[in-house]
């Protein structure tokens, strides 16, 4: 299941991370790397870049876990670090050529692509969105960030996040008239259009 927000480390693993215990580091990687990879690949649309994000994040984790205020903060810290690394790559002109292109097909569909046809459609539709829009959608709806947090992350306003979210869903549903609403950016209007299968 996608998302780090629902991923937990055992308290033993988290405490081991703080102590720099290699077994705990390996366990944290085993638990956190797949959702982290899912997040990074869906935001960046590139498997190589996503692996770089995972690598940089875990190298940082190994070096800095000892400075965490509490063991419970480990997952949140890892997620925030990975998000920062994703954002850094979105902003890097050097990387933009890799990110802007269409998401690469999974090398081994049986291993990576969702078996559900609807989810495969969703992956494809997501890959066609602008990278910033993908990131806003993922952070808001999968990772549970607020619009305020997303706006701050991008150095923009809360409205930026809401409009990106609305625009993204407008494209995903084929309803370009989706408009901003009060709490989550939607007062969904009644236009018709080809919907992404869900």
């Amino acid at each position, binding site marked *: *299941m*996608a*998302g780090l927000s629902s991923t937990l480390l055992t308290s033993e693993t988290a405490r081991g991370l703080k102590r720099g215990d290699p077994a705990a580091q*390996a366990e944290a*990687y085993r638990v956190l*790397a*797949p*959702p982290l*990879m*899912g997040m990074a690949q*869906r935001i960046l649309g590139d*498997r190589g870049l*996503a*692996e770089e994000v*995972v*690598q940089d994040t*875990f*190298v940082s984790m*190994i*070096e*800095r*876990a*000892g*400075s*965490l*205020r509490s063991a419970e*903060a480990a997952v949140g*810290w890892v997620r*925030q670090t990975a998000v*920062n*690394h994703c954002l*850094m790559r979105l*902003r*890097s*002109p*050097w*990387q*933009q050529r890799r990110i802007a292109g269409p998401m690469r097909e999974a090398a081994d569909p049986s291993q*990576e692509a*969702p078996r559900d046809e609807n*989810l495969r459609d*969703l*992956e494809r539709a*997501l890959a066609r969105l602008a990278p910033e829009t993908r990131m806003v959608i*993922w952070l808001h*709806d*999968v990772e549970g960030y607020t619009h305020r947090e997303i706006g701050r992350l991008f150095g923009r306003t809360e409205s930026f996040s809401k409009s990106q979210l609305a625009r993204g*869903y407008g494209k995903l*549903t084929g*309803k370009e*008239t*989706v*408009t901003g609403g009060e709490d989550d950016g*939607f*007062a*969904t*209007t*009644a*236009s018709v259009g080809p919907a992404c299968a*869900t």
Partner: protein
Amino acid sequence: MTDSRPPRASDPLVQPDGKVTTLDARGEIDGLRRSLRALPDIEPDPELWERIQEQAAARPKGMGQRLPLAVAASLLLAVTAGILGANLLQGPPADSAAIRALKERSMKLEPFTRNIHADPVTAAFQYRIADVDSQLAGVTDGRLSQAETQRLWGRRVALMESLAEVRRARAALQAAVY
């Protein structure tokens, strides 16, 4: 007279701005959200963990090893100043004058570090700046001491000055050539 039947998907709802909403459209977006959360995790390359361990081992003993000492030092400082309780209860303390000055310098340098011609050199600087930014994220939840915060802002400014210098040197070179 109130219509007590349950709403149907196709029922129009008039928004305050006059736009019309239907429950089926709303439901479609809710369905997309559920589907996003249902997307499977992705396994990284089986050798990635090995590469991570190698990279971590190859890096110079840096902040990760020094930080416990830095934390201990800042704790001692905080106790001495009698502000430990307030710091823990109220989150990060206000910026010192030195940190404020570094932030201002950083803001002034921002325009010189954007829209730079992309190449491995500038990308390396941008990675390092972003790495510092990810460490500075610890300021917001009070994980970093003032001393560590100041050190990171200082590092950020130094990197940005270097990046700006690269840009200036390139511009000078281009002017000389053309």
